[in-house]
């Protein structure tokens, strides 16, 4: 645009010159100037950037430009007045000083308004603001500062800032002026940003502050500082709340596992230093799932609160009680001998049985630390957990003290860990047979473990330990990996998941990645037991919905053996119900089981779910199930669990095939 107007100026000046000379002819080369100017302005308007980016002239540029303009116009005014007395020049040059004066008045008005605005901002600022002189005396105060400090504004003027507001530390000890960051800003000329200190009010109380002390300069010399501070009582309260939440259980308010473990570690170090023994107990209800399933989660929570109350009331102030998760509680006894700790734990178990409604038994595992061993809190928890496991194995409702030696459980833990790291977790498969078509519909993967000597170990031997000591998640991941590989070969698989693995992001991530890479989701089905689903119903629902979105199936395993089977049917989007072997085995000669299976099949059918009968052992059962409308069946008669052969998909056992074939062709 600048260029366009320049061209226009030249064009018009030349035009005027030629016109004055009487030589103007429309349409000449000079006429092109107007057209070129129009074109340039039009071109500048095509750009999306602003037409101009104006800024106010300031500082030296402003004074230089204005001085030249003023002097030039005054000189012209004088020359014209003395000479030609040209009205245009006189008028134009006389207008300039008038406008300069207007500009000056405008600046004064704007500055006044700005000053008032600044005063208003400072007066209404949520932060306290103090202006200090070079000796750190208060020379100006905003109302917020006076309110926060409990002084009148006038009272504060002239007072020494440090001795008025900042003379003691948070713990009440004297705060030497040489260490004071406020004064340091004045001495060093560096901005000081400080948190975690307190300012003191006129009445002698203190409040936590965050503050900034900025040096104030004039002509390069430090003439004081500006102190801006805020009362952070509320933030500190929130931080304390957050810290409390991070260290405590939300339901009971007791310590959580993390902080309990940390405290246990601290007590071990104390025990080593002072040679004083202590003990750690883990107390666990024997059938908490029953309460949750039969009476609901609210009753379960009430029971946990009652348990927390019993434990808290039964310990000394110096002991610690924690909720470690679920129905598992921890108690840390300080300076307690082993026998005393066992007696205390037994007393707890007795009280729990007496004082809970419904009456519920509990078990406890105890470990004693005597200051002779360097242990961590987690070491103690594992040892107490092993003792608790032994207590449960012995039927529950008892206290077991960790022997210190390698118990059976610990041996299994080590064995499972080695099997995982040495690739000795093996996948077996058992065919699930389509009773309406006769072929293998899917293969259920079953976990096995091979020991160091190459012998196969039954899952009943190691799975409880793997679940108890949180190794089952790793085992599940291995099985999911094997299952996805098999599905990648086009074989339909059913993979069992434990409660802890439901919603495991690694498993769902692998599944999503495999499906994204082209895996047919219909080839993958997951099986969870009712008990697993009950462990975390919210995660189970989320997991089931995710599988549904991905196009995979979810089956409820061992259906009918849990406490609230129909709850799962209602809440989980499942596609398959696996009728537990207990109903199927007795079905042919037990009328109740027979009716139960029939009802389950009818119910599943009406809900659009398929049924699988587990534990089918003979041709008669196959025929009966088929007639009842069961969709699929599995069992030794149809196909035993065998180690997976990647090259040979499972087929129906010959005897079963013959029976099925005969039944299907009748």
């Amino acid at each position, binding site marked *: 645009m600048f260029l366009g107007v320049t061209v226009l100026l030249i064009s018009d000046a030349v035009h005027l010159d030629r016109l004055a000379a009487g030589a103007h002819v429309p349409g000449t080369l000079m006429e092109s100037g*107007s057209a070129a100017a129009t074109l340039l302005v039009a071109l500048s308007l*095509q750009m999306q*950037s602003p037409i101009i980016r104006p800024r106010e002239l300031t500082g030296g540029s402003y004074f230089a430009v204005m001085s030249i303009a003023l002097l030039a116009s005054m000189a012209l005014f004088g020359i014209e007045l003395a000479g030609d007395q040209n009205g245009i020049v006189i008028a134009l040059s006389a207008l300039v000083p008038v406008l300069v004066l207007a500009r000056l008045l405008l600046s004064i008005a704007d500055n006044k308004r700005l000053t008032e605005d600044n005063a208003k901002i400072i007066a209404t600022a949520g932060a306290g603001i103090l202006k200090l002189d070079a000796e750190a005396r208060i020379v100006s105060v905003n109302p917020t500062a006076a309110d926060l400090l409990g002084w009148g504004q006038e009272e504060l003027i002239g007072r020494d800032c440090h001795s008025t507001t900042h003379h003691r530390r948070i713990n009440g000890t004297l705060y030497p002026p040489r260490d004071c960051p406020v004064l340091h800003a004045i001495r060093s000329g560096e901005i000081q940003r400080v948190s975690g200190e307190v300012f003191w009010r006129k009445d002698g109380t203190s409040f936590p502050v965050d503050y900034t002390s900025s040096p104030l300069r004039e002509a390069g010399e430090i003439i004081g500082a500006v102190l801006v501070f805020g009362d952070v009582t509320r933030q500190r309260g929130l931080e304390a709340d957050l810290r409390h939440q991070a260290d405590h259980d939300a339901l009971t308010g007791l310590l959580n596992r993390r902080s309990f473990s940390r405290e246990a570690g601290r007590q071990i170090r104390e025990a080593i230093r002072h040679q004083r023994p202590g003990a750690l107990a883990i107390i666990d209800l024997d059938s908490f799932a029953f309460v949750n399933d039969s009476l609901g989660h609210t009753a379960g929570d009430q029971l946990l609160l009652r348990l927390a109350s019993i434990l808290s009331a039964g310990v000394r102030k110096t002991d610690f009680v924690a909720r470690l998760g679920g129905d598992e509680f921890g108690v840390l006894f300080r300076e307690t001998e082993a026998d005393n700790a066992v007696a205390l734990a037994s007393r707890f178990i007795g009280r729990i049985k007496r004082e809970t409604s419904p009456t519920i038994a509990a078990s406890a595992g105890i470990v004693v630390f005597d200051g002779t061993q360097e242990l961590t809190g987690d070491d103690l928890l594992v040892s107490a957990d092993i003792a608790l496991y032994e207590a449960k194995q012995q039927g529950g409702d008892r206290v077991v003290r960790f022997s210190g030696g390698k118990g059976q459980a610990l041996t299994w833990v080590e064995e499972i860990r080695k099997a995982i790291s040495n690739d000795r977790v093996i996948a077996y498969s058992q065919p699930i047979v389509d009773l309406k078509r006769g072929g293998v519909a899917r293969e259920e993967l079953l976990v096995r473990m091979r020991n160091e000597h190459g012998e196969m170990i039954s899952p009943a031997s190691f799975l409880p330990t793997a679940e108890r000591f949180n190794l089952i998640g790793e085992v599940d991941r291995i099985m999911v990996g094997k299952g996805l590989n098999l599905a990648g070969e086009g074989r339909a698989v059913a993979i069992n998941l434990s409660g802890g693995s439901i919603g495991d992001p690694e498993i769902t991530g692998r599944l999503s990645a495999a499906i994204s890479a082209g895996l047919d989701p219909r080839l993958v089905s997951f099986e969870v037991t009712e008990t697993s689903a009950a462990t975390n119903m919210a995660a189970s629902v989320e997991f089931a919905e995710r599988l549904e979105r991905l196009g995979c199936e979810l089956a409820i395993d061992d259906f009918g053996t849990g406490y609230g089977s129909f709850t799962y049917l209602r809440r989980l989007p499942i596609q398959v119900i696996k009728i537990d072997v207990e109903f199927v085995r007795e079905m042919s000669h037990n009328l109740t089981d027979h009716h139960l299976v029939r009802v389950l099949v009818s119910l599943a059918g009406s809900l659009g779910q398929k049924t699988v009968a587990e534990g089918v052992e003979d041709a008669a059962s196959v025929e009966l199930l088929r007639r009842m409308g069961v969709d699929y069946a599995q069992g030794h008669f149809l196909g035993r669990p065998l180690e997976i052969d990647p090259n040979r998909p499972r087929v129906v056992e010959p005897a079963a095939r013959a029976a099925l074939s005969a039944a299907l062709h009748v």
Partner: protein
Amino acid sequence: MLRWVILGIAALALALQGADAAFGFGGWAPADSNDLLISISMCAAALAALLAAAASRTNRLARLAISVGVALYAVGETYYLTVQKTLTGFPTTSDFLWLSLYPLILIGVFLVIRSETPGKHLRVMLDGAIVALATVALGYELLLKGIVHDAATSATVVGGQLGYPLLDLAVLTMLLVFGLGNRRALHLS
């Protein structure tokens, strides 16, 4: 795209007019071709400016004001070349149309300044006006006074036409002053 085609037409017409004015078309072109090409060029440029202003996302009102000014200026030129043909006095119909460019440009510039320098726009405009007035007075004194003084044709016509370079100078100076506060502005404008 359409705007750039129209601008291309304007540029082409202008180039042809320039060539005709400088070298002539050898007598085969119509007698009024020169005036016709100028009219086409200016009207096409004005149309492109109007279209750009209508489609703009920033300073739309300011762009519209300036482009309307450009359009009126182009109409004035076309009217002068095709109907009026001579400057017989002041002000003529063409003068009204030509002169309307300047207030509209100033309105556009004011709108930009108001949006770009909130709370300071009056000071910025006053600075521009002060320097523009001084420059115009100086320009008149040094350059234009002699032309008007020595005019061979009607003093009314010449005096009337004097307003154009003075207004050009005023606008140019103001743009320069606004640009001084921000060097990028000079580059962009």
